[in-house]
């Protein structure tokens, strides 16, 4: 089926289905969302106003049988950072959109009045419908309601209460194959969908298939690619322990931010580690291994049950566990799991919100380590939109400003995640220069700084960090466009057959002749497009900096500070 652009105008409540402009034909995922945002969104616009647009795009290989290719990208101007934003996630929506011939869904304008709406997308139509029943409800209620009204084969993209209230940390949730949730987590995209008064988007199942120009070549390349993923020992460990296997190694390296970034090690690390989590899951008859979309062969997700062996949460990731755990000093996995579930249901970023909670702890709003109070605040204050709930739900920077805290770990107002930039310097470069505020996934130098993947660069030295971060940010921008889960990168960095097979699949899918260099230049172009948008929005090189406390407060155990100068950081963009 020929790909189309589906467009929804919420100002006059009209829809259209358009041909794909030639310039966009070779793009997908992040490459496409960022290109469309740059082309159609005024960089200085208010992110929650009528001139912002939200773009939803499956990756270039989504909808095919390529392993791990089911990521969906959502882009807009971020209300949290004011920069361009792309957040991606698994779930079933990317594959369903691609099979429906939807190359991108563009939602623009703002409705007049205070009605809420839902969108329903099929292979040849998109409709806007009034929504009343689900307003004020969480994401799980939305998924249940769509299954009741239509059936459980439908894809769902939705916001919880946080998005309805336009909290700046609100995320967008994607239904997974088990009717649980995956999140396009960072940057407050849920608030943008909420500003357009869209509660959810349902996607009808279809028997259509995506076109493959050269089926034989595609099948052969996918076989090689899948084997590289499955044989990789890191993929295998991800299946067993999930991403949370990182707690102990990052703690051992002295880079696990603890107690609102005042130490690099957490006494309670063992209690919240991947090893403990694995034992707990097995003991409670959950599932250590689970995939967020059909076709994932790594399966880093899991089903975590409560003490009564009932479902509590899934996709229980290292960053969420670090944030609510070490950063807030909560050493109880059940409290963290409860908080994770509450955040999923109300649709709020678990990194931003937990880091905000740690800043609130420093301000004395609640005590470090009080997991029960964290859960109460989430349930009673944030989900209900009390004044304290709004303060916390608008992110770490907002909490810091409100309570006069100066130790606020953010770049471009987005919370710094689970790796301390003083003790792991490459990731500090990524936090500074990422086009989207502090975000580890933009250029995951931890692979090389800590894990010994793709070579090794000493985490405490200034040497080589800028080049490392740049190369990874370029590669990541390309991978984020293919629809591939970023965890293919471990095999890609380790196994020389992996990346060529990925390029072969792109060529076989579209009948083109890309080389590995073309894919790299695609990554560079995406980064530059995003950077140009930010410059036009008013950002300067002075925004590519860490907060000053990182340069002034040494962190244990290495007693190191952030010591890479602004001038050095600025050379990142010399390419």
């Amino acid at each position, binding site marked *: 089926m020929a790909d189309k652009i589906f467009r929804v105008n919420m100002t006059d409540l009209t829809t259209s289905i358009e041909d794909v402009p030639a310039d966009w034909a070779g793009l997908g995922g992040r490459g496409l969302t960022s290109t469309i945002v740059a082309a159609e969104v005024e960089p200085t616009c208010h992110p929650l106003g009528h001139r912002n647009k939200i773009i939803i795009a499956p990756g270039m290989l989504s909808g095919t049988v390529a392993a791990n290719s089911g990521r969906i990208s959502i882009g807009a101007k971020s209300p949290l950072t004011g920069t361009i934003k792309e957040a991606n996630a698994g779930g079933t929506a990317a594959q369903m959109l691609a099979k429906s011939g939807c190359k991108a869904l563009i939602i623009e304008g703002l409705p007049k009045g205070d009605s809420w709406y839902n969108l329903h997308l099929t292979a040849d139509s998109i409709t806007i419908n009034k929504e009343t029943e689900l307003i004020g409800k969480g994401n799980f209620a939305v998924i249940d309601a769509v299954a009741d009204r239509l059936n459980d084969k439908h894809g769902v993209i939705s916001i919880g209460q946080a998005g309805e209230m336009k909290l700046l940390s609100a995320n967008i949730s994607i239904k997974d194959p088990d009717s649980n949730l995956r999140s396009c987590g960072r940057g407050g995209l849920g608030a943008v969908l909420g500003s357009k008064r869209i509660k959810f988007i349902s996607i009808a199942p279809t028997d259509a298939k995506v076109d493959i120009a050269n089926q034989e070549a595609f099948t052969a390349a996918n076989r090689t690619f899948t084997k590289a993923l499955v044989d990789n020992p*890191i993929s295998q460990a991800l299946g067993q322990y999930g991403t949370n296997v990182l707690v*102990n190694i990052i703690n051992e390296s002295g880079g696990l931010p603890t107690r609102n970034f005042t130490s690099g090690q957490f006494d309670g690390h063992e209690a919240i580690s991947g090893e403990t989590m694995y034992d707990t899951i097995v003991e409670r008859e959950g599932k250590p291994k689970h995939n967020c979309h059909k076709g994932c062969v790594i399966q880093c997700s899991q089903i975590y049950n409560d003490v009564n062996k009932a479902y509590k949460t899934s996709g229980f990731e290292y960053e969420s566990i670090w944030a609510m755990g070490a950063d807030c000093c909560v050493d109880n996995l059940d409290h963290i799991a409860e908080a994770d579930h509450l955040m999923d249901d109300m649709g709020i970023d678990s990194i931003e919100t937990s880091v905000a909670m740690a800043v609130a702890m420093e301000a004395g709003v609640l005590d470090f380590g009080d997991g029960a109070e964290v859960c109460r605040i989430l349930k009673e204050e944030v989900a209900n939109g009390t004044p304290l709930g709004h303060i916390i739900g608008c992110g770490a920077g907002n909490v810091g400003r409100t309570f006069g805290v100066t130790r606020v770990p953010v770049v471009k107002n987005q919370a710094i995640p689970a790796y301390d930039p003083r003790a792991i310097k490459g990731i500090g470069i990524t936090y500074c220069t990422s086009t989207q505020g502090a975000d580890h996934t933009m250029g995951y130098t931890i692979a090389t700084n800590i894990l010994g993947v793709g070579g090794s660069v000493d985490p405490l030295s200034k040497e080589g960090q800028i080049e490392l971060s740049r190369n990874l940010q370029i590669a990541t921008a390309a991978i984020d466009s293919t629809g591939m889960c970023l965890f293919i990168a471990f095999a890609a960095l380790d196994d020389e057959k992996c990346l060529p097979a990925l390029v072969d699949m792109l060529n076989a899918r579209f009948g083109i002749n890309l080389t590995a260099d073309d894919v790299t230049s695609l990554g560079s172009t995406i980064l530059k497009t995003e950077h140009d948008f930010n410059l036009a929005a008013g950002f300067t090189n002075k925004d590519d900096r860490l907060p000053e406390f990182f340069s002034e407060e040494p962190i244990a*155990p*290495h007693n190191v500070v952030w010591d890479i100068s602004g001038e050095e950081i600025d050379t990142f963009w010399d390419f």
Partner: protein
Amino acid sequence: MEVTVKLFAYFRDGRFKEAASTLSDEETTPRNVIESLAIDMDDVGVIMVNNRHAAADYRLHNNDVLAIFPRIGGG
């Protein structure tokens, strides 16, 4: 010489999480410790001594803390 040995992920299965280990004068490297634990060197991803990355042939000192990880990743 006494060192503390810490194991992670599946290296703990049938072994231990953390143990004190006495090394003879001839066996002073992480590789010696790894071999004595019947861990396949090819399965080792990261070695740290006192919170810093170290090579398999690093010379250990009394009271060092040696951490041995299989090949793992996340993000």
